[in-house]
């Protein structure tokens, strides 16, 4: 979010990668790609590549994290060292810890945690190639993996960012737009109720631009939701 660039990121309503302002990058989702995990998903979103795997409900470790009346969701987001141009040191840095934490909380809203007292549902998201928007992509993959694992949920959670480049509000920032844009607003919603379970924002938006960015991200989430359901249908179909 440099916010003060001369770089032309959008021209005549067309972005550097050829998309229109309200267009998602291509999203490909495959459920059930891993053997050991109870549920799994491989997702490509533009050039982002992510694996998600789910185990549980299972006994919660460490014990002091157990909740007497419900399960907890232990989500973990990590980036592979080779997922970015400069090698990333392995392990959980502060950014990954924060994302893991807010994603865990978002899923506790939709997973039927009250059905599994004292249990843990482990959600692991591995970003193996990163090109902006990985937290939304990882959450989306995790939703599909949770469904693939048969974990009872009120709904899946599509997640998608809007943002601002060259003073234009756009959907789903790519890497250049993320680096040189003016705002980034990742959003995750529950499609059936419209509730917001994850929202972050960095940058600069006027009041009107904020409203527009909310509209755009919400509509992006709904588009994504359809792709997620199609992937699951295909997976169930394939299993029959």
């Amino acid at each position: 979010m440099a916010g003060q660039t001369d770089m032309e990121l959008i021209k005549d309503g067309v972005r550097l990668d050829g998309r229109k302002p309200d267009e998602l990058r291509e999203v490909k989702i495959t459920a059930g790609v891993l053997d050991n995990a109870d549920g799994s998903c491989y997702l490509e979103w533009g050039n982002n590549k992510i694996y998600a795997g789910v185990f549980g409900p299972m006994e919660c470790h460490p014990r002091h994290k157990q909740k007497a009346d419900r399960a907890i969701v232990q989500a973990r987001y990590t980036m592979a060292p080779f997922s970015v141009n400069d090698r990333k040191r392995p392990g959980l840095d502060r950014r990954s810890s924060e994302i893991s934490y807010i994603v865990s909380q978002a899923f506790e809203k939709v997973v039927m945690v009250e059905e599994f007292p004292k249990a843990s549902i482990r959600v692991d998201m591995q970003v193996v190639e990163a090109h902006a928007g990985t937290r939304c992509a990882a959450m989306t993959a995790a939703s599909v993996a949770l469904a693939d694992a048969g974990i009872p949920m009120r709904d899946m959670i599509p997640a998608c960012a809007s943002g601002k480049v060259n003073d234009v509000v756009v959907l789903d920032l790519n890497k250049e737009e993320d680096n040189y844009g003016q705002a980034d607003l990742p959003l995750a919603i529950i499609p059936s109720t419209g509730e917001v379970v994850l929202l972050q924002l960095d940058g600069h938006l006027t009041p009107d631009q904020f409203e527009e960015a909310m509209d755009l991200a919400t509509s992006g989430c709904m588009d994504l939701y359809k792709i997620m359901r199609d992937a699951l249908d295909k997976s169930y179909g394939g299993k029959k």
Partner: protein
Amino acid sequence: MSSDSVSNLMKGHMESLAAEGKRADGRGINEFREVKIETGMINTAEGSSMVHLGKTKVLCGIKLLIGTPYGDSPGSGTMTTSTELAPLADQSFDPGPPREASIELARVVDRGIRESRMIDFDALCIEHGERVWMVYIDLHILDNGGNLFDCCTLAAAAALSNAKIPNVQHGIADEDVDLPVTCWPISCTFGRLGDTVILDPTSDEESVMSARLTVAHDEDGNIRAAQKGMNGAFTDAEVREAVKTARKSDNVLREALKGI
């Protein structure tokens, strides 16, 4: 009666109050607690502030050191924010490595300052590619009475506004100058109590609320940062309404900041 039952009773009571537009401490639902800002009390720091927000007390110290810039921004200074949840601030704070909640707090405060470009980082360059000022913002929480997000952001802003670049000590220039600040992002944090959204939650309210939303605006009314937290949700309408409320409600903090 188990502590869970007590907590459930308190939750019910607070939600009922909030539904009627009332709060346990007599405030309205969109009202801040009393705020008090002092600055310059720490002589070993280049800038310092103590902010009281109700019973919450945060001490912020700014250190300015000379270092080398990052390779990808050779003409810019750097900034590091850390929050120390001192054990004396809260019975439940464990000494030890930062927990997830503490990391979230530090990162939200950091992003609010960094991504709004509140500090003019280019003006912190001493020698391109060689030497820049590194700004360290250390937030010391002394008393946790709730809403650390807004109190820390305000303390950081106050301490930054109070900071002087120690040119003389390091032989950089003939006089010390103010740290270059370009805008004043102020954050407002909301909590969801039952079906009501309240501003500036106390620690009692935090213990029973289901979701948190922090929104920061600059002095021109532009939104600069936001963060939704906890395992509840807000409706789309609540989010948009909270943003509007924040734009109006941050005046009391903004005035306190100007008054220092």
